[in-house]
């Protein structure tokens, strides 16, 4: 399987705090990789850097062989990287249909795409996440689960090759959580995306991920198949503390 993302020794400081310290990882096409770590480990910062929201202090990021370390976020999106947000950030004044339509129109460079075609495509993505019934509802009027679905639809509409899913489970009840896991699995199948899944809930990653990376205080402390990582003493210590 080809390697699509390669992060080399990336570091980020916020004033005196080192959020990410020399992290390297690589992701192959078609994988589902889990990213774990206690709160404050630097997971979201790492994702922000790969997506372009934060500049990198040192290190290199390569996507599909291209060096994207200095590219602005929208260019990275056109290349095929997209993300969802941990706390959903819908476009408050846009309807769900309009929100997904923005990604459909601008996610990839398609200068001859018409507005109506993009709208139609957007409805496909809405249908996929089950929000077709709410297509004319303002995005801020949705429930949490629906907003997560909207985030996913919006990200998928940019036709990404690599998608970062940021803590989808937070705040969902067991029924919704199950639906969310199945949704992401079926997104992988139907749209052929590679998924980097940031998650706290171990059980989910055990089932869904082929490989798990664990961060702690901004450094990578473990990497490997989920069962192996779950039994890694350093990982256990980082979550539960030393006894």
């Amino acid at each position, binding site marked *: 399987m080809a390697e699509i993302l390669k992060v080399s020794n990336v570091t980020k400081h916020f004033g005196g705090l080192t959020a990410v310290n020399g992290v390297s990882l690589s992701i192959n096409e078609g994988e589902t990789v889990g990213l774990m770590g206690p709160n404050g480990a630097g997971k979201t910062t790492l994702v922000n850097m790969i*997506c*372009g*929201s934060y500049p990198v202090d040192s290190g290199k990021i390569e996507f599909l062989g291209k060096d994207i370390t200095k590219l*602005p*976020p*929208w260019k990275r*999106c*056109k290349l095929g990287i*997209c*993300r969802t*947000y941990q706390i959903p*950030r819908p*476009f*408050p*004044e*846009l*309807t769900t249909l*309009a*929100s997904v*339509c*923005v*990604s459909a*129109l*601008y*996610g*990839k460079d398609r200068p001859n795409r018409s*507005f109506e075609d*993009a709208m139609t495509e957007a409805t496909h993505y809405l249908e996929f996440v089950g929000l077709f019934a709410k297509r004319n509802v*303002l995005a801020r009027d949705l429930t949490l689960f629906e907003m997560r679905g909207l985030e996913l639809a*919006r*990200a998928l*509409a*940019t036709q990404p090759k690599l998608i970062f899913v940021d803590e989808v489970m937070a705040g969902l009840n067991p029924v919704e959580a199950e639906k969310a896991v199945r949704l992401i699995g079926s997104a992988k199948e139907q749209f052929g995306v590679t998924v980097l899944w940031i998650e706290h809930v171990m059980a989910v990653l055990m089932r869904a991920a082929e490989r798990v990376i664990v961060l702690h205080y901004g450094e990578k402390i473990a990497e490997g198949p989920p069962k192996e990582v779950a039994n890694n003493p350093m990982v256990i210590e980082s979550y539960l503390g030393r006894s």
Partner: protein
Amino acid sequence: MIYVGILIVVPLLVYLISFIWPPAINLLTRVIEANLLAAIAIPLALMTISTGRMNFGPQFYIGIGGYAAALLSIHFHVPPGLTMVAAALGGVIFGFIMSPMAIISGGLYYSLLTLLFPLLFLEATYIFTDLFKGDTGLSGVAPLVSTGNFSLNLLSYAFISLTIMLVYLFAMDKIFRSRYAIQMAAVNDDEEVANSIGVNVNKVKMIGFTIAATLVAVVGWFYAHYYQAFSGQIFLPLSFMLKIFMVTMLGGRTQIYGCVIGGYFIAFLEMILIRLTGDMSPVLFPIILLILLLVLPEGLFGLYRKRKYREYMPTLRFRR
């Protein structure tokens, strides 16, 4: 399409009727003023939505267009058609140069900067007074229309101003129904997210800003040729800015059809106040506007909007 039909046919009819039965001069000047105010507020809506910030100094571009037209007309006897091109060009250049402000600064700082620039321009007209005649204003600008008959002239000006306003209105309507509007709405709502889903936020802001600046500069051009004079003292200070903003506010902030209503409302309110209260009107006018501002936060359009369910319309967001 019915609305389009009405908006073309009605003015044409009015114009034709006015040949036979000329309306009062006062009415015509108010109509011209109303059209021009609306013609400033409409591009301002574009600027606001595309940058996601409120520009507190749109009259800066009136100054650019007006002075460009006036100076070229007086010193080089350039005909009005070409001065319009010059005014538009001025708008493009200055709009483009100043558009990075919308990228770099936000919230309070952006409001400050945009507020200060027209005042800086006014200062410059005082300092370089041989060029701009800051204290007295430039006079002797060629008129747009001179048929010899005063009321016919005025009627023509009214029609031209109406045309400009309608052209802007239709253009903005088209833009706000197109895919560019969705892009701008995304930028207006959440820049960072829009950036991450592939929208080139900086390009959207700069283009919106520049186009709006150009359109406003053309209105400045009209003012110069209409009054056959141009003085920064009338158009650059805060009092004019407040008038423009009241038109915007009364119209429901970014609703372009509301801007037309707002423009006519303000123009005729001014006339009524002067008729009724004479020399107290400069004091009463801002008082009434303040009351309107507080009582109708969403403008006259808000009264209409409260009836309908909240539909998708990009609204104004003020960033810290």
